[in-house]
Each structure stands twice: as structure tokens, then as C-alpha cells.
């Protein structure tokens, strides 16, 4: 008898056995009754959309793309990809002005940098925030990440020669946040890697990873950036370099969303792009050393960003933090902070965003750490705004815990 050795479907949607575990773990389902949930929005909805694109549900925009459904799915259905891809294929409502502004992280960064103090002053004012709330529907409660007057790229370019002198080299995909908002994180990474004898190079020319474009209805622009980045990454990888990153979302986008949502082939570079915490952790475990200070003491609570959980790499950041002498380490239970990049900025999502994050905020308050460690910049904004606790990337904590080249 002829039987089928295997069956295939896009994003494995036919593998779904309707067990509903994705729905149980979906953070949006807990707070927003308008959202049909990952099972319905994903595999169930796909069958309907294949019947008639008119069955596309506009409520799919409430998906915050945290990918927890994919982490928990026992059948390897790419539920979140299915939802995002449906939005790309079937959403006919054009993005709003606000969505263009929020998605253009790099353009906004370039524009804001020369006048950073003015922009930062303005976004701190209640009046400006109220105006944006009313005109753009960007929620007035949000605090905005500050822009840096001097970019990271320029800083590292000025140190090109110095970095080239190290015996080992890596390339660094820094992302928009490090370049335009928080160059200190990049500087911290350089400090740590240098201390291990590793020099840091820029990619030939990197662009925004494109995730904000993908989730804001601008996948065509995202694809252009993806093609560009894969080429730049390819040059670095070809010359034998690993590419390290400090943002879990940029990393997941480059590694997994490029092929699955943007149809950009990244096979040549995918395995060489990895979070710096993984790179450093594995190096230390293989015998490398860092000049740790002996007077460092901090109580650290670690929050695993959703995309870090999807990568399966939260464990590296956790192990790395626990290697630091003087660290009192508490892992937080993995729940979504509710921010999800640009999602939480939108007025219609603000209340849900805060409700999703509430259990995490409660945990943090209960632990009462000196600092919360987390690999994602948007989790950082959310947690800092909502709890008042300071949030740092594990790399920055590591940089603080090692001596400053004799200055210490």
C-alpha cells in the first residue's frame, strides 16, 4: 500500500494537533479578548485564509511576535512566523504615519543625533508626549530612549588600528540602539572582548535588521535591508570572522526571520551570527580568562527576553553572569515584559502591554535586585519605566566587573 513517508506544509501548520499549549502560554491571550490567540490566528486561520484571503483577521496585529508559542509548541509549528507571514501576505490596510516613524529606527536615529539634546529634552516633556499621543497615537505614558550625540560607529572607527592589533578578531553587528541611543553598550563589549585578547571590527556597512519594519507592515523595505545585511555579513564571514551581537531581537531576525518571513537566503551567514554572551561564555568555558575585579558585588536578577528564549540562548547569558565573582544571581521566571519593540509604544496596546508585563514587574519587586540583567533594549525600556529598577545588558555588567586595564 502506498503511504506518505512525510508530509510538508508551510511553517509546519499541518503538524498542529490543536493541543492549545500555545494559547495557554500566549501573553496577549491573558489580557486581550480581541486577540484570537496563536492557534486560531496561526494554523487554524491558515486553512481559512487558503480558502479565501477575505478570512484574514485584522486582529492579528495584536500578536506581539514574542514567539513564545513557538517555544512551547511540541509539534514544531512556526506559529508566530505563520501569523507574521499572514500579515505580510494579506494585510491590506496601509501602515499609519506613526508606524512609519516607529519602524524607521535608523532614519530617526540619523535625524535625531545632531540635535540629540533637543530631541531628548522634548521627548521628556509632558506637552510633547501629549501631542504625540493625540496626533500619532503613541502612548503618552511611554518614556523614549534617549539619543546619543555621538554614534558608536564613529567611536570604533577611530580605534580601528588599535583593534586590529589584537591576535583574534570578531565583527560586531551593533544594531540601531547601540549606534544611535546607547553607544556605551558597544564600548562595554569592546572592553570585555579586548580583555580576552579579541579585537572588534565593524561590518563593512550594516543597516537596521528590519524587525520593526516587518511588524509594522513594511516588509518590502525590510527585505532590502536584509539583502544588504546578508551581503555585509557574508563578507565578514567569508574572511573567517564570527559576528557577535548584543541585541537578542536583531539576532533572531537575522538568523531566523530573514529566511522565514522575508525569503532572504542567509544560509551562508546564519551559523556565524551569535549573541556576544554565548561567544564569551563558550570562550571562558574553554579556558579563556577575564581580569575580574575582586571588589565587585551585585545582586542581579536575570530576565530572559522572549527572543532570547526562542533562540534557546538565555542559558549562555545566565551562565556568564554566574561566572562573575561577587554576583548574587536570581533567574526570573520567563514571562513576557509586554513591550515587544514598537508594540508597547502604540496607544491601543499600552494597557495590554502593561498588563502583560505586570507579573514580571511583581517578580522584580519581590527580588529587589541591585540591577536587572537582560539582553534586549526594549525590555530594558519597559522594565525601567514600569519598575524603576535599573536594567543592564549582561555585557555591560561584565564590563563593570572587570578591571579597567590597570586603571582599577
Amino acid at each position, binding site marked *: 500500500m*502506498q503511504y*506518505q513517508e512525510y508530509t510538508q506544509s508551510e511553517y509546519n501548520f499541518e503538524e498542529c494537533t490543536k493541543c492549545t499549549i500555545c494559547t495557554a502560554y500566549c501573553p496577549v491571550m491573558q489580557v486581550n479578548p480581541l486577540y484570537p490567540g496563536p492557534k486560531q490566528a496561526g494554523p487554524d486561520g491558515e486553512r481559512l485564509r487558503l480558502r479565501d484571503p477575505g478570512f484574514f483577521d485584522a486582529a492579528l496585529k495584536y500578536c506581539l511576535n514574542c514567539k513564545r508559542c513557538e517555544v512551547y509548541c511540541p509539534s514544531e509549528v512556526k506559529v508566530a512566523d505563520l501569523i507574521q507571514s499572514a500579515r505580510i501576505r494579506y494585510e491590506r490596510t496601509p501602515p499609519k504615519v506613526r508606524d512609519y516613524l516607529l519602524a524607521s529606527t535608523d532614519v530617526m536615529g540619523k535625524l535625531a543625533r545632531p540635535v540629540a539634546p533637543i530631541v531628548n529634552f522634548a521627548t521628556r516633556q509632558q506637552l510633547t508626549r501629549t501631542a504625540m499621543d493625540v496626533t500619532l497615537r503613541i502612548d503618552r505614558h511611554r518614556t523614549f530612549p534617549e539619543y546619543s550625540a555621538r554614534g558608536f560607529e564613529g567611536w570604533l572607527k577611530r580605534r580601528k588600528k588599535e583593534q586590529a592589533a589584537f591576535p583574534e578578531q570578531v565583527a560586531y553587528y551593533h544594531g540601531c540602539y547601540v549606534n544611535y541611543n546607547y553607544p556605551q553598550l558597544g564600548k562595554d563589549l569592546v572592553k570585555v572582548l579586548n580583555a580576552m585578547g579579541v579585537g572588534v571590527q565593524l561590518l563593512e556597512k550594516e543597516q537596521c535588521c528590519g524587525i520593526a519594519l516587518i511588524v509594522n507592515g513594511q516588509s518590502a523595505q525590510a527585505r532590502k535591508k536584509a539583502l544588504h545585511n546578508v551581503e555585509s555579513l557574508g563578507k565578514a564571514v567569508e574572511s573567517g570572522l564570527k559576528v557577535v551581537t548584543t541585541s537578542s531581537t536583531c539576532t533572531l531576525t537575522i538568523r531566523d526571520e530573514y529566511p522565514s518571513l522575508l525569503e532572504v537566503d542567509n544560509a551562508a551567514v546564519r551559523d556565524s551570527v551569535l549573541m556576544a554572551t554565548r561567544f564569551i561564555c563558550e570562550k571562558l568555558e574553554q579556558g579563556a580568562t577575564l581580569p575580574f575585579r575582586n571588589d565587585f558585588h551585585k545582586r542581579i536578577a536575570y530576565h530572559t527576553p522572549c527572543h532570547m528564549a526562542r533562540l534557546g540562548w538565555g542559558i549562555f547569558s545566565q551562565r556568564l553572569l554566574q561566572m562573575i565573582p561577587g554576583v548574587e544571581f536570581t533567574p526570573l521566571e520567563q514571562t513576557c515584559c509586554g513591550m515587544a519593540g514598537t508594540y508597547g509604544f502604540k496607544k491601543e496596546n499600552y494597557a495590554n502591554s502593561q498588563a502583560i508585563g505586570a507579573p514580571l514587574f511583581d517578580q522584580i519587586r519581590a527580588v529587589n535586585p541591585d540591577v536587572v540583567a537582560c539582553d534586549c533594549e526594549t525590555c530594558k525600556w519597559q522594565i525601567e519605566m514600569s519598575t524603576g529598577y535599573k536594567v543592564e545588558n549582561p555585557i555591560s555588567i561584565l564590563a563593570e566587573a572587570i578591571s579597567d586595564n590597570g586603571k582599577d
Partner: protein
Amino acid sequence: MKANEFDVIIIGGGITGAGTQRDCAMRGLRTLLVDRSDIATGATGRNHGLLHSGARYAVNDPESAAECIRENMILRRVAAHCIDENDGLFVTLPEDDLDYQKTFVQACRNAGIRADIIDPDLARRLEPSVNPDIIGAVRVPDCSVDPFRLCAANMLDAKLHGGQVRLQTEVTGIIREGDTVKGIRTHNRNTGEDVEFYAPIVVNAGGVWGQELAQIAGVKVGMFPAKGSLLIFAHRVNNMVINRCRKPSNADILVPGDTVCIVGTTSSRIPLEECRNVAVTPDEVTLLITEGMKLAPRLASTRILRAYAGVRPLVSADDDPSGRNISRGIVCLDHEVRDGVKGLITITGGKLTSYRLMAEMATDLVCKKLGVDKACETATTPLPGSEEGSYEEVAKKIWENPTTAQKVAASRMGTRVSRMRSTDHRDEALICECEQVSMGEINLAIERLEASTLTDLRRRTRVGMGTCQGEFCACRAAGLLAKAHGCIEKEREDIDSFLQERWKGNFPIGWGETLREAEYTQWVYKHVLGI
């Protein structure tokens, strides 16, 4: 006039019976329809769900072909909410004779069927799932039709015109006075009651079981049951009907229907005794997969949801009791003329596509016998639900921003979906998530469409027809039935037989995800719910 007296009794709740009851009721007759189980349980619900353009019959049976295209065009108007106007392709594969295409197109045109030869490249663009190796393609006006919905809509309209419906009611005898039929003796399989119903005309619309009914009435109708097996794939691979452009053969039609697509059929003679319990054999599964792959290669690796089989009610030509010339055309027998038995009519043969015409022919005969002079209006009066345009327009008229579930309900119920609008939010709760069937729709089917078991509900709403095959919806829907009937014990049995019936369809293709899901369903019901 007593409550058990009618102008006409129709035996058989298939599409022919339901259509005949509707037509009779619309012409002002007092009608009763009985069926031993439920509507659409025989050949009506066990086929491709293809509303033929007639192209398939054009070469060999031009009369049927012409009938099909006329009815096809009529049903698009009057049964819009049961039909997807998706068109069909007749494709020529490298192993097929391309010369047949000319014969085929000419025959289609002679029968009045629009048949356009199109470039294979265009065919591949129109229907990306089609075998890329095709060397020829013809576009024809095939449609898909939901036979359950069509049957239920006919029954509902008959009821709206005063007709009565008794399901789970088996005919145990035909009451005769001499040569004249006076009525029927029935046994209600639910309540155990034996009841007699009287009418001057009894219409035998029993499909393949029409032979047994005829026997009970003392006349002879020779049926030649031919079994056809089909496979349901778990999602739509194609959006146009794909046929092979060659002499009709096995497994050469792939029809998209609702959320699935169906490949079929096989054809083999079986004894009448086996008609009630046909099973799909491994050889048939092999044939369907290997031939189906030739239509759309993706079928080879697309999850199969179920296998099922039906029995075509073929009739031997009246003057040919040997059965050598089996007709696929409509057979309307006036037993008064043929056998000297007054008041008995048999309407059989034909096809799903031509059911309305069959009903019209039978009803014309009924009216002639009863001396009723009223014209048939079924070709122009829409079925309940089909009065207005697309599901999107229907949904928008009712809800400002219809949800997907509301749009899907509108696509199934047409304008009748307006009855689902309610102030009770629980009515919007989904019972079946795969097919998006809400509590409101289930309750409406129980109240208005004579659904008394889970299987009845499945036929009327698609509950349990999705990929989970009842895993989540069966117990939810059972709860609503138990509430409606005030009986929990019976619902336990109902769940059991429903899931057994689902498994029957999974079993012949029990591998991969379908097997895994069936196993999971078993855990849920046996080990979690303790059923």
C-alpha cells in the same frame, strides 16, 4: 384532514428527496419527508462536492452534459451560499493524448458548455498547484458545492413552506389498497414509535436503497450500486477544480471544497447488501494517492485528513433489466404506467448537479396526478440563505466590523446568519475552532435544522470536520445537545459513536499527523474526560 395525512410523502432525505419536498411544498402541497437516519447520509454527502459544468460528460453523455450546464448556471443564482464559483481546468499530461482535447472542447461547445483552451503557462499561473508538466489545459465553469448545506437549505425551505420532516424514521411498509398506494408505515428509531402516514402520492427518493423500497411496494427497480472512494486533504491545495482531459477514469478529479480539497474517485460494483457499510480499501488509497499526485504533485506530501466512500445510485435502463446499459441520466418512474401501481413514483439516477431538475420532474408528475396546476419556481427562487451577494456583504450588513468567525459563519449560512446576531456574548463562543463554528450556529442547527446528534450537527455546520476531527469540539457540542435534549447519558453514547465515525475515516490513512492527532484525541477523551 388529520395530522398524519398529506398530499405527498417523500421517502429519502438525500438531495433528491429534499429538493422534491421543497418543490412540492412551493407548489402548495402538504408534504412529509422521512428518512431512516439523517439528511444527506447516502450518495448526497459522499461525493466530491463538485457542481459539474457538464464537461466531464460532454464526450460520452451529451444529454447529461447539457443538463449539467443548465443546472450549474441556475444553482449559481438560487443556491449561491452553497457554491464556490471557482472554475475548473481539464489538463492534459504528457502521458495523455492531446488530440482528445479537440474532441473534448467540441463536445463541450455542442452541449453549451464554455470551454476555453488556455496556454499551459496561464493554467499554471491560475492554479499554481497543478502538475507543472501539463501540455494542455481547458478552462470550464466547474464549481464546488457543499452538498450538506444544499440539502439542509432545501429541507429548511420546505419547512418554511409548511412541509414536515421526520428523520430517524424508517419505512417498514407501504400501505396499499389493491393497486393503489395509500401511505407508509414507519418506525421511529429514536422513540421506538410505529406510526402510519397517509398520502395519495408516495415518492421513492431512496437513492441506492430505492430498490428495497420498491420491493416493499411490490414493484421492481434495479439499482446497480457502484462504490466510489475519495480522500480528503487537510487544507486547500488548489482553488480551481482540476480534472484530467481524457476519458473519465479513476481518481482524476481534485475539488477544492470549503477548507479542504478532495481527490477521487474509484469505481467498483458492490452488492446491495454492502451499501450501508462501505469501507475504503488499501488498494483504493494507493490508487487515489498515486493518481492524485499526477493532478497536483503537492498531494504526495500533503496531510490527508480522511478517506471515505459513497455508493452511486446507478439505475439499469428500464427496458434493460440485465443492466448492460447503465444510465447516468435522470430516471423518473411512474409506477402506475410502468407497473400498474397507482400513487407511487420513483425518482433516481441523475447527479447532485441535476438534483433540482430531478425534483422538478418528480414534482411535475406529482402535480399532474393530483391535478394541481402550478408552475415550478425553484429555478428562480433563491434558497433560504442565498438571497444576497457575497458573504462579505452579508456579514457587513449585520456587523460593523465582522470578525473572521462571523465572516466564516456568513459564508456557511448566507443571509440566515442574521439570526445569529444576539446580545448574548456566549453565542459567539467557538465550539469548533478549526472550522470556526460558534455556539449560536450550533444552537440554530439544533432548533431549526433537525439536528439531534453530533453527526447531524457535523453535516449542518462542519463541526468536527476540521483537522482535529472532533478532538475539542465534540465534547463542547455534546454539551449543547445534552442541554437541548435534557439528557446527558444519551450524549455520552453520541460522543462515542461520533468519535468512532471520525476514526473510521482516519483509519485507512492512519499515519503521520492524522494518526498522532487521533492518538491525542484518544488521550483527551479516554484518559482526561474518562469517556
